[in-house]
C-alpha cells in the first residue's frame, strides 16, 4: 500500500539538431529525367520550373520509350551541342530502370584544352 503511494518522477527529453542550408530553387539540379510512369509528369515539372525558375529550364518531351521528358538547364546548351548532350544523357539514363522514377542529374562539365605551340 505504501509502495503504491510512492511518487514517480519521469524525465522526457528530446534532442534537437538543426541544420540550415539554402533551399535549392527549383529543387532540382542541372537536369531532371522524367520516366514515363513517374509520379510527377512533364506538365507538372513545366509548371514548377515556370513558377520557380522561369526561362531557366527547357522541357524536351519524347513520344516513345521509357523516358517521357527531360528538363535541362538551358545554360548547359551554351557549353555543349543539344543533340550530343541529349544523346549522352539518354544513353546513360536508359541503363537505369527509369520508367517509374525521376532522376535528378548533376552535370559537372569541364572543358579541357591541350594545345601544342611552337616556341
Amino acid at each position: 500500500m505504501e509502495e503504491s503511494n510512492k511518487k514517480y518522477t519521469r524525465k522526457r527529453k528530446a534532442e534537437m539538431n538543426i541544420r540550415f542550408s539554402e533551399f535549392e530553387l527549383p529543387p532540382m539540379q542541372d537536369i531532371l529525367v522524367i520516366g514515363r510512369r513517374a509520379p510527377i509528369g512533364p506538365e507538372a515539372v513545366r509548371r514548377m520550373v515556370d513558377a520557380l525558375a522561369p526561362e531557366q529550364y527547357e522541357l524536351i518531351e519524347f513520344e516513345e520509350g521509357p523516358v517521357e521528358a527531360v528538363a535541362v538547364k538551358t545554360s548547359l546548351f551554351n557549353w555543349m551541342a543539344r543533340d550530343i548532350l541529349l544523346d549522352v544523357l539518354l544513353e546513360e539514363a536508359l541503363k537505369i530502370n527509369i520508367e517509374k522514377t525521376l532522376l535528378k542529374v548533376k552535370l559537372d562539365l569541364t572543358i579541357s584544352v591541350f594545345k601544342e605551340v611552337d616556341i
Partner: protein
Amino acid sequence: MFVMLEIKDIMIKPVFTISPDKSVRYAAEYMHEKNIGGLPVVEKNRLSGIITSRDIRLNHPNRIVADAMSKNVIYCSPIDTTWAVAELMNLHNIERLPVAENDKLLGMVTKKQIIKYISQLYDHLTGIYNSTFIYMIAGKLLEEGNELSVILFDINDFGELNKKYGHVNGDNCLKTIADILIKYIDDNNDYVCRYGGDEFVFVTSKKIRQAEELAQKIIDNIADCTPEAGFPVTVAAGISGGKRKYSRNIVKQKNVVENLINKASLASTRAKSQGLKYLSV
C-alpha cells in the same frame, strides 16, 4: 415523320469537368463519386483534354491530370447528327464524347444514349429498320450527292391473309418477307425498312432501271418462297426516283424523300389495281 436528331437535343449538360492541375488521385475519387467513366479537362473555359478510367489505371495517382489526360480530344459539334456521332464513336471505339464548339465544352454524349436512339430506328417485329431510319438514311444519301430510287412493296390482300391464317401467321409472313428483302441488299447501295403495316420500303442509290430489275427479282422471289413458308402472298411495287439531284438543304431533302416515298406508294396502289407487278413513276 422525318427525324434526324442533332447532338444538342440529346447531350448531357451541365457536364462534370476537372481542372488539369488536380491530381490523378482526385480525378479517380471524383469519377467514382459521380459514377462516371471519364471527365473532360477544362482550363480557362477551354476543353484541353479528357481523362478516362483507363488513364487513371495507367498513371501514377500523384501525377497531375494534365500529365495523364489524352490531349488529342475527339469531340463532336452540337449540330452533328446522332447518326454521324454513332459512326464517329464506332470508328474510334469511344464510350463518351465531349460536345464542343470552338474548343468550348457544351455537353457530353454517351454511347448508351446513342444506342438507345439507334434502337428506336428498328422495327421490333421484323428486326429490320423502320421508317424513321429510312427517312434519315435517304436524307444522308441525298446529302452525299447520290441519286435515289425508292421501291415501295405492298402485300396484296394482306387483310385477307390475316383473316384466313390468323394474325400470328400474318406476323410470320411479314418476317419472311423482311428476310427475303434483306437478301437483296447490296451493302453499299441499299437500305430496307418496314414502312408500316404491310408496306416495305427499299431505298437504293441505283438508277431507276436497275431498281426495276431488283423489284422484279424480289417480287418473283416472294411469290416463290411464301407458299413454302405456308402463307402464299404476292406483292406489288411502286418505284420512284433515280432522277432527282441532291440537295444539301435539310428541308429540301425532307421534301424530296417524302415526295419519292409518296409517289412510290401511289404507284404501288395503281400497280395493284391494274394487276401489274410494279409500276415506275
